[in-house]
């Protein structure tokens, strides 16, 4: 009966193709939504993994998270260096990683930090070595790939998160030197340039003690002739070595209760939990995704309706054929099965084409759009959600075929033969 169902579908190939197309479009949309939703949120989770709390200057907590974890926004401001010492001394903190942000090279953010930042993302050195001396820089995998930078390459950082043409804010008096390249991790660190906090200070002309890595909190005198964004909080009394944010991991659950409250109440800084802000971000996106999802399901229902109409017309126009099949010895259930199979085949073809199209689109998109590639969209990843979509679409195909197929039980064979023969 399978061959017969196929033959009937081929017999009206235009209708079949249109029905398949209709279903394929809706399946592709649904798959893309599922893929975007899941890959986006898993990427967010991966980037925020290991970081329980971000401490930074007061402002929007979402901005703090976006700037210091996902590196897609401007920093909120600076915080004093002694806060790092204070947090490192806290028994509930297992790790505190300093971040000094502000510059970029070719759109890739330069992050002043220490080696533990790479460890946080499990990034290993693929070539060269970790930064040690001032102005040493380690390139993320994507940075090295896209800019084609080699070890020993010198480059100049410029202000902000994006490099604009001729913005004239380059620090050309102090070039960075690439000493290492990281292996790909699939996280945000791939498109960052890591250097030491001291290099960032140096470049902005902030004086500090090179030998003393573990700062004890005493204030450094800074040069006045190089006033830059890094220092606006303390601009009045000179440039202090400052940080942009501190990433914190708790040693135990008690920290989660005490530390945010302590920072928000007793200091001029704010503490933001990545989990909370990420959830807020997803909720913001969620409304849009939900709307698109409803639209796609309506499209799928339309596809089902189209199959229904096509099969209903077919069952009416083919009454003679169906009667002939019965006379030739086909049982009612065989003829019934043939019609249901037609709906099922159409739905299966639509689902297959849709999934293939969605993954092809993902492939093309991740190739041609830098930002999507950065988000870690992968075309070869299949999700359980897609299986659910396929099953639902197949069900739609069967249900759409049921009512037309039911006609075969109502056909009065002698009458249809009399009409058509």
């Amino acid at each position, binding site marked *: 009966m399978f*061959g*017969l169902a196929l*033959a*009937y579908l*081929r*017999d009206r190939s235009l209708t079949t193709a249109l029905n398949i197309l209709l279903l394929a479009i809706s399946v592709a949309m649904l798959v893309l939504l599922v893929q975007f939703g899941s890959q986006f949120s898993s990427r967010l989770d991966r980037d925020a993994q290991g970081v329980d709390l971000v401490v930074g200057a007061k402002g929007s907590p979402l901005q703090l998270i976006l700037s210091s974890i996902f590196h897609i926004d401007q920093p909120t401001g600076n915080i004093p260096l002694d806060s790092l010492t204070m947090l490192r001394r806290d028994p509930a903190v297992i790790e505190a990683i300093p971040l000094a942000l502000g510059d970029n090279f070719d759109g890739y953010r330069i992050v002043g930090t220490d080696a533990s930042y790479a460890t946080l993302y499990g990034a290993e050195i693929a070539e060269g070595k970790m930064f040690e001396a001032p102005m040493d820089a380690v390139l993320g995998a994507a940075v090295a790939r896209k800019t084609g930078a080699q070890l020993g390459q010198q480059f100049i950082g410029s202000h902000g998160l994006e490099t604009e043409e001729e913005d004239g804010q380059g620090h050309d008096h102090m070039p960075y030197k690439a000493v290492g390249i990281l292996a790909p991790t699939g996280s945000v660190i791939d498109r960052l340039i890591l250097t030491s906090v001291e290099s960032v200070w140096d470049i902005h002309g902030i004086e500090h003690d090179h030998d003393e890595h573990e700062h004890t909190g005493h204030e450094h005198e800074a040069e006045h002739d190089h006033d830059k964004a890094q220092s606006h909080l303390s601009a009045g009394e000179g440039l202090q070595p400052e940080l942009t944010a501190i990433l914190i991991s708790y040693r135990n659950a008690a920290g989660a209760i005490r530390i945010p409250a302590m920072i928000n109440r007793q200091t001029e800084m704010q503490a933001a939990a990545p989990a909370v802000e990420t959830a807020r971000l997803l909720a913001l996106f969620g409304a849009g995704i939900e709307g698109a999802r409803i639209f796609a399901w309506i499209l799928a229902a339309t596809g089902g309706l189209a199959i229904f109409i096509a099969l209903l017309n077919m069952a009416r126009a*083919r009454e*003679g*054929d169906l*009667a*002939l*099949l*019965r*006379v*030739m*010895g*086909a*049982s009612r259930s*065989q003829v019934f099965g043939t019609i249901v199979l037609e709906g099922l085949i159409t739905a299966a073809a639509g689902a297959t084409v849709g999934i293939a199209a969605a993954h092809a689109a993902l492939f093309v998109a991740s190739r041609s759009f830098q930002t999507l590639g950065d988000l870690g969209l992968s075309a070869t990843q299949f999700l359980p959600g897609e299986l659910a979509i396929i099953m639902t679409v197949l069900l739609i195909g069967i249900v759409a075929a049921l009512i037309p197929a039911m006609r075969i039980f109502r056909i009065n*064979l*002698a009458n249809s*033969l*009399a009409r*058509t*023969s």
Partner: protein
Amino acid sequence: MTDSVLLEIDNLHYSINQRPILSGFELTIAAQNHHLLTGPSGSGKTTLINLICGLLVPEKGVIEIAGHDLAGLSESGRDKIRRENIGIVFQTLRLVSALDLSANLVLAQRLSRGQRDEALILSLLERLGIAHCAKAKPHQMSQGEAQRAAIARALVSRPRLLIADEPTSALDEANARQVADLLLECAGDYGVTLLIATHDERLNPLFPNRIALSAHMSKAA
């Protein structure tokens, strides 16, 4: 000629909308004893054929095909008797439209016997002179070719009784003659008994046995 009785009808009653079409009808057809079923339109030829094929259920009376009584059977039981014993040729409804000729024949074999017999298909295509149409869709064939294809489709399941309802009425002189000749020849070759319902006068000289249904029953209404 063998004496075995292929079709036995006794005291058959059937009416449509309270109008008796057949009452007390009797008929016995022995194997290899071809019959022509004649009568004007509305005299009940098609009704009788539908009854014999088990597509309609008689109000009263006995229809026995190769010793099986249709009366006591369910619909699927009647389907089975029809599948195993009867091939049917209609006036215009000939082949499944979506399939080409050979696929039609294979399907007919599968449906009736559950297996395929390529040799029989080839010999029928050859015998009926439509081997060149094997890959043609029904709408690509001429009237005559299509009717011969319908005969092949009916014979491919190796029926014992071949019932044809107006097989030649839609055809021109030459094609009608050719189809009638082929029906008779194939009946001999494949051991099939023919029962042909027609008002086509052209067939009369070819068949010695004639069952004439008259229209007088319907006049009562």
